[in-house]
């Protein structure tokens, strides 16, 4: 029991009074039957649910909840009857935060029936986080990849958690107050006509006994296979529930396999955009989350990914690069930016430049003209696999036309000043894209109106 007491995160003491008068207290320490932690990403937020069985007398009961060494948001404490309990027989009348004391709450509960009462205690804490870690392994011909993912749980809450159920949730949660700030506040809801002031942050480092360490290690060794991760959508969030119980020591992190997607169709896409990336193309590996060839899919939470390539049956894995991916819902194309490359070349050259179409104002000054530029873009794929190439070019004004060879090139207007050519290049293939752009300036050119309509491109 020693190690359990050192892990004890919440003490509920029960003061049995039938009426609301202060007086004699009977203290019963109630241990939770089940503890579940739901860790949010990216917010520093963890929702704790504890199932406890309390012996309540019929009538008004007073409970005292206190804690130590945890960053619990006291304003988030809720005590509710469990689902199978009639909600009308047990009611929380109010919560009281006593004067001159922190880290405790008094709760008045009215029980119409008496006896053992299953209750759920829930609250928010700070200090727990999680993130996914991905590994992508490209096939030898780079036409498909295997995506491996792991969930990494990080415990900086100040306490070791043993034998608890974990779930992790991804989604953008809007918070008014940060739980850690509320936990550190001198008064849970502040004071009238005063700004809330934080107390000095307390030391969160806990010390675990050797017995506790051995106990945790023995629990780890007992598991023979990784736990299953159950995935489900909740409103606009996605929940990953880790089957079984886990233990995580304070200050430690723990990674568990999440899922593996085999044979996801991959595309080698090279993007050239001088304005965005500079003079060299950038390599992207793209695949569709939940696309053809995959059978087990779910949204991909934002996280870091390392990309390798299979060099063949007898070869090692080749490191291709590392990047981060944003959240990707099912059906979204995921792009892995592996950085600039030198084995695919894109060289634009201005072949001709001319002007035409002059217009003049009443004083005889030039008020408008056209500029005609002829460009050649040479592309060369020195790699041993075919690639897709995307060349973005930009016009100096938003009034322009492009002449190109539609039989040879795939052209697309992206926005008012950007157009794109797409090319498929085989291994070792060279090609040339030629186009002529006419831009209109001055009276026929672009002078964009002022606008305040948000950041649209």
């Amino acid at each position, binding site marked *: 029991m020693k190690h359990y007491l050192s892990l004890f995160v919440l003490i509920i003491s029960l003061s049995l009074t039938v009426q*609301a008068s*202060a007086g004699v207290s009977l203290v019963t320490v109630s241990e939770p039957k089940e503890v579940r932690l*739901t860790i*949010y990403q990216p917010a520093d937020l963890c*929702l704790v*649910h504890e199932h406890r069985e309390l012996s309540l007398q019929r009538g008004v009961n007073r409970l005292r909840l206190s804690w130590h060494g945890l960053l619990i948001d006291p*304003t988030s404490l*809720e005590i509710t009857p469990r689902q199978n309990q009639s909600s009308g027989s047990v009611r*929380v*009348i*109010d*919560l*009281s*935060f*006593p*004067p001159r004391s922190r880290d405790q709450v008094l709760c008045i509960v009215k029980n119409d029936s008496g006896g053992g009462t299953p209750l759920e205690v*829930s609250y*928010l804490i700070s200090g727990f986080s999680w993130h996914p870690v991905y590994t992508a392994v490209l096939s030898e011909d780079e036409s498909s990849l295997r995506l491996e993912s792991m969930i990494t749980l990080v415990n900086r809450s100040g306490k070791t958690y043993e034998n608890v159920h974990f779930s992790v*949730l991804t*989604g*953008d*949660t*809007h*918070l*008014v*107050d940060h739980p850690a700030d509320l936990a550190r506040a001198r*008064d849970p*809801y502040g*004071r*009238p*006509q005063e700004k809330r002031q934080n107390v000095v942050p307390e030391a969160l480092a806990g010390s675990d006994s050797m017995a506790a360490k051995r106990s945790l290690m023995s629990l780890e060794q007992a598991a023979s296979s990784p736990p299953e991760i159950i995935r489900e*959508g*909740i*409103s*606009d*969030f996605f929940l990953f529930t880790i089957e079984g119980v886990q233990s995580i020591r304070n200050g430690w992190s723990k990674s568990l396999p999440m899922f593996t997607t085999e044979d996801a169709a991959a595309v080698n896409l090279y993007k050239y955009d001088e304005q965005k990336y500079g003079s060299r193309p950038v390599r992207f590996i793209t695949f569709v989350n939940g696309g053809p060839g995959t059978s087990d899919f779910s*949204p991909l939470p934002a996280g870091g990914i390392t990309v390798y390539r299979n060099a063949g049956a007898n070869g090692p894995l080749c490191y291709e690069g590392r990047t981060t991916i*944003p*959240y990707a*819902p*099912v*059906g*979204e194309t995921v*792009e892995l930016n592996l950085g600039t490359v030198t084995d695919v070349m894109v060289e634009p050259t201005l072949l001709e430049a001319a002007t035409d179409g002059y217009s003049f*104002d*009443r004083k005889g000054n030039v008020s408008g003209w056209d500029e005609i530029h002829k460009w050649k873009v040479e592309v060369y794929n020195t790699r041993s696999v075919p690639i897709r190439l995307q060349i973005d070019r930009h016009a100096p004004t*938003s009034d322009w036309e492009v002449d190109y060879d539609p039989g040879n090139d795939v052209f697309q207007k992206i*926005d*008012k000043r950007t157009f794109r050519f797409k090319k498929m290049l085989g291994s070792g293939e060279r090609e040339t894209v030629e186009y002529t752009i006419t831009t209109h300036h001055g*009276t026929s050119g*672009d*002078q*964009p*109106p*002022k*606008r305040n*309509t*948000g950041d*649209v*491109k």
Partner: protein
Amino acid sequence: MGKSTKALEFSGLQRRLIMRGRNRLLGSVGLMLLSFVLFPSAHAGINLAALPERTSATLDLTGPHAVFIEERLLSLKAGVNEIVFSWQDLPVLEDTIRLDIPDAVERVEILSVSRQPAEPILTWKVHCGAPVRIQTRIIYGLMQIDGLFALRLVSAEDEASCMLEQYVIVRNFSGEDFENLTVITPSGKTKGRPVRHGETIRTLVSSKDAVKIEKIWRYDSRKKPGVYVSDKSGKSMPVYYRIENTGSGGLGEGVIPGGKVRIFHRNEAGRTLLLGEDAIETIHPGKHRDLYIGKSRDITVDATVMKEKQLNVRRNEDNRIVLYDTDEEIRFVVENFKDSPATVNLLYAIPGEWQLTESAIPWTRSEAHLAELKIQLDPRTKKEFPLKYHRRNVRP
């Protein structure tokens, strides 16, 4: 209360310390520092040690400031009675003190109110036709005690209805312990309970089931959270729950005070998860509020300016452009990655004089400079459409 405060002058800190020590000593009984001294005649200086008990104490939070109301049973003799009201080291707002005598009581009227300079003492002169024992009310503003409001919304699995709980949070740092304090809020009244100095209590005021909510995904080009990032990372759509304070919405019985609202979701298995928080203003009957939960990453909006051309340019003698019209086009791509249908509310701000010339989606001019479109999306579908418009008489 017999001590004179004239000879004792303490600093604010000393007074607070003395108050705390005093409160501790007297414990839950509370120290009634508001005392009443009744004078049977107009003679000053004679003190009667009768201390009428406070029969009730109420904190009224229905106005912009907290108001304290206490009821006391006063025994008045025939003739002029002097009622001395004093407050020792309590943060009473002096200008707000009022003695309320019920209209039903005959032949009792307040003659005058005297305020002693630089002293926490107020004296009422009350004339009484015959000896009487009456229930009077003293109303005053008390600082360092107030109430906050909070809401807890637990949506059902289908996110079309919810349970809505309203709480009041009383923060008592007034220096006084209350044995039986009742709180009146715009949503209802709480039962009396003790509230000590330095204590904060949170009490449920009302709880309603089956309150209707409407889930809204809204893209607003005027607001930063709705603006996407051009390279696809960070695309997300703000999500709101709309509640209406109407009878048809399951409410409508009174004002819902503004405050912090925590929004939860409960699935059929009974599992409750926090979706988000918002701080809202008061919701008056007949009005609605949109509670901002967070952002959905499974519904995205991409807006691209495809065309922005000047027309009908007019110049002055110096050849400077002074006026022009525009021909503009925005391309929207709205995509639903969810397994359920969704309706996206798209608000696009266009400054100046504008006229829409083409839109594949029905639209309305909800404000002078705002075009509003409602886009219905089936599960896992994408809609791409242009919005074309002219702007007239644009000045550089």
